[in-house]
């Protein structure tokens, strides 16, 4: 009896059921807090035609960037896609469809998707290319556009610590899109640095309850730094 135990022991098992042309919601900001091993497993599986919603698309050879090498991504929903030559090439040639979405709207689309809210109004993007073709409503004298929620067949995310029930804690700015991404996928797969026994996390300090998590795996992480900046003592 597995009960609430969400732990799986292999990455193959973690992504079992992922098929061509599915939609994946992914956590991470730049290369910070990305589910790097789950992304590598998607590459290994060779799943194609994917639609991926993630704030960024990785860089060449890192993060979601590695899925471009074998043209596994059909469509990318992101707020910022710089720093990636292969991405630019595939976008320019039309092989890769890109839906640029404001960062806060993207976070809210994921949150709404996970919270059973099909759409919401926001002032962000009104009067810009983002608002084109979208319903406009006026509330208290201001224009808002209707944005629809995002739902995924899978979500892939990274947290810092979890108990076996999938209760999660994140660390510093590696939290970013991860909590919302997890809630918006039908099958939410989370990789963490450490899994502890149930009861070892203070319920008051859990950032995301295990109810949202379907599969949990412990991994080791490269944690590549995109822009190393230091000051001298």
């Amino acid at each position, binding site marked *: 009896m597995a009960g609430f135990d969400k732990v799986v022991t292999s990455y193959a098992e973690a992504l079992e059921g992922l098929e061509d042309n599915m939609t994946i919601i992914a956590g991470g*900001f*730049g*290369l*910070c*807090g990305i589910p790097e091993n789950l992304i590598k497993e998607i590459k290994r599986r060779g799943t194609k035609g994917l639609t991926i919603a993630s*704030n960024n698309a990785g860089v060449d050879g890192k993060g979601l960037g590695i899925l471009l090498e074998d043209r596994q991504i059909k469509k990318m929903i*992101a*707020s*910022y*896609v*710089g720093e990636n030559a292969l991405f*630019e090439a595939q976008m*320019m040639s039309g092989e890769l469809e890109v839906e*640029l979405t*404001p*960062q*806060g*709207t*993207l*976070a*809210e689309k*994921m*949150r709404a998707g996970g919270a059973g809210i099909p759409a919401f109004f*926001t*002032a*962000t*993007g*009104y*009067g*810009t*290319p*983002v608002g084109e073709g979208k319903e406009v409503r006026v509330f208290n004298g201001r224009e808002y556009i209707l944005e629809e929620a995002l739902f995924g067949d899978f979500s892939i995310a990274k947290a*810092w610590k979890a108990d076996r029930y999938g209760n999660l804690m*994140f*660390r*510093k*700015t*590696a*939290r*970013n*899109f*991860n*909590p*919302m991404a997890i809630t918006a996928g039908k099958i939410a797969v989370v990789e963490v640095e450490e899994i502890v026994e149930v009861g070892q996390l203070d319920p008051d300090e859990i950032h995301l309850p295990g109810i949202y998590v379907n599969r949990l795996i412990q991994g080791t992480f490269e*944690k*590549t*730094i*995109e*822009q*190393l*900046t*230091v*000051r*001298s*003592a």
Partner: protein
Amino acid sequence: MALSREQLAQRVAQEFHDGFYVNLGIGIPTLAANYIPEDMQVMLQSENGLLGMGPFPLEEEVDADLINAGKQTVTMVTGASLFSSAESFAMIRGGHVDLTVLGAFEVDCQGNIASYMIPGKLIKGMGGAMDLVAGADNIIVTMTHASKSGASKLLAECTLPLTGKGCIKRVLTDLALMDIVEGKFVLRERARGVSVEEIAKLTAGELVIPDNVPEMRF
């Protein structure tokens, strides 16, 4: 003399008030953090989920899990807090951030801003800029007044795709500080040694010139 990057940052910092929560965009706005007066408390918001951003880390403090919105490694000040991107943009969209400072390609006298996309050139995305301009009440745009070839970037109507509509009220350029009031630019201050005529010549949108336009003071 046109303002240097450092002088622009210094002038931006004069807009800070004690107890302000401030979001600084990439580039010149970020530099303004170096000029927060010592007797003032200002908390910097980084939209990837940090309130209370500190300086860059010492080499031994570097933490891959702690970055700013420009993906640079940073530190936290005492009293900082961490949260998700949804929470971060709730505070931005909800109008809880006191001041937002960001760059632009063009601003027009209707308060429109274009800052993320030049058609025909590579489009990298708007990141959080659209949410920031839509959510904040108090925004300062920092930019150069004109292109290298002398074409004004302060227009009657933006030519590039917009980042936000009717949301800009204050613009700081390398030549002048201007407010946008009822569809007109109003000249408030000028850079040292820059004449009102020079600014007028490089401002394509309608410009109101008050009797007294003081030089900026640092």
